[in-house]
């Protein structure tokens, strides 16, 4: 039969302390800001731990995200970034897809691919790729935020400004 546990004193004390701690944490979390740091990027094919360049000078600085762990994916990502910077979106797409075949669960790659498709005007594909990035980012805060912000960009391109702004408010667009 179902029976509830009886509360004992040790548990009670523990509970009070943890409760107090929770209150303090809750206060911090509710401010909603994702920590953002600006960093320069390596720009060439040697793997770096800095945030990758987007190649678009008008965009605010990238949220700091861990690069792909796999060195080949890093290399391909760097080449794709260069291609994007040179307006060679087709090439960037091929390179990013190659990278995904090597590291299929790397959210950052899907974010970049979404961006490339959006530039080419394929907002449908960009949308689903952004959703994929969100699903893969999971509990990684920075990746999740970047993925959501990419989705916001897709909404913006689709004319759904309200949806875009809602996301941007929630995930805090960095101002550099």
């Amino acid at each position: 039969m179902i029976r509830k546990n009886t509360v004992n004193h040790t548990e009670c004390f523990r509970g009070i302390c943890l409760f107090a701690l929770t209150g303090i944490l809750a206060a911090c979390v509710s401010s909603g800001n994702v920590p953002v740091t600006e960093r320069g990027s390596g720009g060439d094919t040697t793997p770096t731990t800095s945030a990758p360049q987007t190649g678009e000078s008008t965009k605010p600085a990238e949220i700091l995200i861990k690069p792909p762990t796999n060195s080949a994916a890093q290399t391909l990502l760097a080449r794709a970034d260069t291609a994007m910077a040179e307006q060679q979106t087709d090439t960037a797409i091929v390179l990013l897809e190659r990278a995904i075949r090597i590291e299929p669960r790397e959210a950052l790659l899907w974010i970049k691919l979404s961006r490339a498709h959006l530039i080419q005007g394929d907002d449908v594909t960009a949308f689903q790729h952004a959703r994929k990035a969100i699903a893969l980012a999971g509990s990684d805060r920075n990746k999740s935020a970047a993925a959501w912000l990419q989705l916001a960009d897709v909404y913006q391109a689709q004319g759904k400004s309200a949806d875009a702004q809602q996301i941007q408010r929630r995930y805090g667009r960095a101002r550099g």
Partner: protein
Amino acid sequence: MEKKTQSKKPKKSKGKKPAQPQSRVARLRRWLWVTLLKGVMWASLAGLLIAAGYLYYLDRHISKTFEGRRWSVPAQVYAQPLELYPGKKLTNAQLQAELRRLGYRQSADLEAPGAYQPIPGGVNVHLRGFAFMEATRPAMLVQLMFVGDRIQRMNTQGKPLDLVRLEPAVIGSFFPSHGEDRVILTPEQVPALLAAGLKAVEDRNFDEHTGFSPSGIARAALVNFRSGELQQGGSTLTQQLVKSYFLTNERTIQRKLRELAMAVILELRFSKEDLLTSYINEIFLGQNGARAIHGFGLGAQYYFNKPLNELPPDQIATLISIIRGPSYYNPFRYPQRTLGRRDRILDTFLQDGLISANTHTQAKSQPLGVVDSPNSGGAYYPAFMDLVRMELSQRYSASDLRSRGLRIFTTLRPRTQENAQQAVTSTLAAIEKERRLSEGELQASTIVTDTQTGEVLALVGGRRGRVDGFNRAINAKRPVGSVIKPLIVLTALENGFEWSSTLEDKNITITPANGEPWSPRNYDGKTRGELPMIKALALSLNLATVDLGNRLGLSTVQRRFADLLDYAPVNRYPSFFLGAEPMSPLRLSELYGNFASGGFRVPPKSVIAVLDEQGNALSHHPFELEQTIEPEVAQSLTRGLEIVMQRGTGRTSPYAQQGVAGKTGTSNDNRDSWFAGFDSSQLSVVWVGRDDNKPTGLTGTSGAMRIWNAMMRAQGPSPLAMPPSENLIAIEYDTGLQATQMCADVVVLPIARPDTLGIKPGCKIKSSFGDRLRSIFSR
């Protein structure tokens, strides 16, 4: 008075002959002669007209065929290139096997591309150049070093290299119009020795004659007479070319004359170089099942698994040997005979000064050198090509694809394909042996896709991989049985049910509104009463599943089916809950793709891009996905399917405890045996059954899953890594009550609403702080 009779004297006029009396016969003769002459003239004229007309017809016929074949360059179809980078899981031996599959030869001399040399702990390779989709890579020398089962580092010319790829395997080279494969060579690509050697052996006067060669016929007759065998044919290369266009066994005089006429026409119209090149691309060199081998380019691939330009003189001679009789001089069946002819041809090469004495000696000392069997030369995957053709036809018309030299990049991974085919072939043979079935009774098919992108890595249409036949992976629709159950469980998780929810596994009779009463049974005829949903899924209990399905409603479950697959199921009765729904392995793979990808519909895809000859993309097919399931629910279902492997009908797999998820399925009367399983990188769907649809006596576990086990054995599983989830709770496997491993046999699963859980009596649950908070605030 007397009349004067005087003989008439002919009047003599000056310079004129006296008129002769004309006899009747002479007149007749004359008339005949004139008529005959006239007749002959008219007949000749008519004959000439007819002959001209006929020649015109022949001309149009042969020229059109020649032009059509000459200018159409077939589409080249490529598999995925193998990417190489430090850290990649690949052994030295595996890499060398890949190189051999691409026709690389082991050699100490790495001067030319297409060679590799093993060294301690690694390998040196002279990579061939290749024009990839986004970049052209020239030939290059690379060194790879391995540690354990991974690449450790790579260098090229002393500098470190962090990424390089092998060139992709050519898996098809076909004319979209007639579907046959060719490897077409341009005149520049024809090795000099081949061109000269062909003329020396088959048609000495090729460069001089005008289509036929009386001296050639005479010489051939002499040689054949002397040697007692058909060493030389009297036909010129041009005549042989004509014959090859119109393959017929008819060997009548008229046929011969017709060929002659057409050969002459070709000679008049086209250059010697054109004719020779066409010959090299068209001549029949063998047959393997339904597949005809035409042309030296394909021949080199088929017999030696190499590009033509890498063949040494002895192998060129072997290919020329085959022309005279591909069945008679079949290198696989009659190696000695073929070797003999090859050597005689090498002698001819020497006599004509085409090779040096040294080369001649060396060449003759070589063994025949053909690949092990007709099925090991060059990549040939007709079942996968079916899928490629299907996808192309959805996007392009036949005329779109007719432009020359298209390059089609596909998703196939040859190593995965070979593993899958081998697994099917060997496992079926083993099962047949164990169960004393006759060889060939069982059939199977499988599809392997990437879990995240849906790209098809391997497709096996039947147990005999390289012979075109019925493609069971795409076209055989069979009832899927229990593999449908995860769909029902998914619907349940999305509609308020939990893994701990109690289901009733008891006898039930359903009478649908417009159907017969239906009383399903469990596989062992027993009932198990009340049990949690996770256990019902793991044990694949029919009655509990029907209970769940009824509570959800058939239309709700089938709506979900349509969401995940983009089409509605055909079976609208509750038997759908037990998988009485015919599907092909391809479709089932698409269904499970939704689960394995973490909640996205990823239709199986085989074509990445189509480029024209200049390298411009006609189309690029991006990753196609559509979110269909909330990520948390998809993850939850995957955890459940892991438990199906760990504890349920999948537990006898050697890989059951290694981070894999899967579901077995058996249809009515054991006619169809199914398995769908995935790890973090690949999803595989396997079917085993009989073409005549009779029962096999196999279950999903004893049939299809064994093939999957064999596939796993070949490449090793990539364990699923579950991201941490707040909702993971230990529940008792038999009852669904919250418990701990100290007091019960538990499984750990996401529970969305833990407050709905009962607690097992006698268990001390150390609830997490989160739980307590939740329980306080949710009242």
